[in-house]
């Protein structure tokens, strides 16, 4: 098992495809379950919907791994499947009008966040709730870009590869998302920043 854990993602995929080793596949699942679930949860906005997405994603990976050509990294492939399946799920929920209200989803997220990571509460529950609510109100495509860039910490290029669009499209979607968030939060973002809840950017230190 130690050998399996030390392997790269691609080596695990190769081993799984070659030998059918369930252990290699389980290792891939445990490596990526948090990332897959969080991405799905942010885009879909529903806990059970995100569970369904993750379930389907890993089943799809299991079935399609023999056809994986290693043209991109395994993580990019996985994120792409997660994003596409999450967008489908978001559309399905919207069609069936099962969409949870943004507020209830945000409360749900905040409760889970605080239970999992109490130190996050220091950021300010109210500010976080408002921001999460504003993010939840974005369109699924904008949510996908915001999630990959800010929550998953991927580069523009990685996000572009995952959503299969140029880097320019990623940046324009992020700008649009910021504009919408700014409209939704009004002056709150700036106010919270002044209050030190989010922290001010050191212009000269970070960017000059």
């Amino acid at each position, binding site marked *: 098992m130690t050998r399996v854990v030390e392997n790269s993602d691609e080596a695990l995929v190769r081993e799984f495809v070659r030998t059918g080793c369930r252990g290699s596949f*389980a290792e891939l699942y445990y490596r990526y379950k948090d990332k897959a679930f969080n991405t799905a949860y942010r885009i879909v906005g529903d806990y059970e919907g995100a569970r369904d997405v993750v379930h389907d994603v890993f*089943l799809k990976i299991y079935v399609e791994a023999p056809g994986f050509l290693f043209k991109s990294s395994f993580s990019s492939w996985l994120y792409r499947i997660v994003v596409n399946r999450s967008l489908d799920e978001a559309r399905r929920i919207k069609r069936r009008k099962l969409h949870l209200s943004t507020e209830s989803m945000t409360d749900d997220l905040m409760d889970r966040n605080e239970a999992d990571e109490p130190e996050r509460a220091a950021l300010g529950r109210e500010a976080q709730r408002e921001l999460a609510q504003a993010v939840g109100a974005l369109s699924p495509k904008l949510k996908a870009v915001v999630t990959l860039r800010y929550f998953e910490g991927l580069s523009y290029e990685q996000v572009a590869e995952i959503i299969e669009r140029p880097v320019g499209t990623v940046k324009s979607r992020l700008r649009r998302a910021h504009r919408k968030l700014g409209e939704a939060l009004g002056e709150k973002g700036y106010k919270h*920043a002044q209050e030190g809840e*989010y922290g001010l950017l050191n212009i000269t230190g970070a960017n000059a």
Partner: protein
Amino acid sequence: MDCSTSRGLMLEFVEGTLPATLSAAVAEHIRECPSCMLELEAQSSRTRALQKLGRVSAPDQWQEISRSIRRAGFWYHLRRYGLPAAVFGVAAAVAFTILNALVGYSRGNGAGASAGPAVGTAATQGGPGGSREGAAEVGTAVASHGEGTLSAAATGEAEDRLRHTETYDALEADHYGSMLEQLLGDEAEVLMAKGEATD
């Protein structure tokens, strides 16, 4: 740099992904523009807040995924290995059947083409010649030897042709004799008698 350009570059500026020269130009504009300064602070605070929103811990779904994999295993393996094998098998069976039919047809046709006319000829030629027994014999020979008894059929045909020729010659001689009698009447008898006398 004007406000529009500055705000267009604000995202990369906040995230620190602008080239140094552009970053310096934006910073210079922002220091002199209170409106852009406010926008910068709002955007940077949002960005930091988004990065700090944190993650939820994912539920462990391995058991249910594993069960689904086992359930899907049959179809997965059928799709991966079974279907191609099945398609190949069906294609091979169809090809074999077609090939077999073609070979059988050509064999049957070849035998029929050589033996068939021989039988037919024997039957038709045997009929008028009065030698029905010969035709029946030939037919029996062909039937008993089945396909490929070409030599027997050919022999029968030659024999039958010979019999037919002899019969025809006899008929022709009788026919010409009677015609001569009708045309010449008594003269014929005279001529024939003369001929016999000459002979």
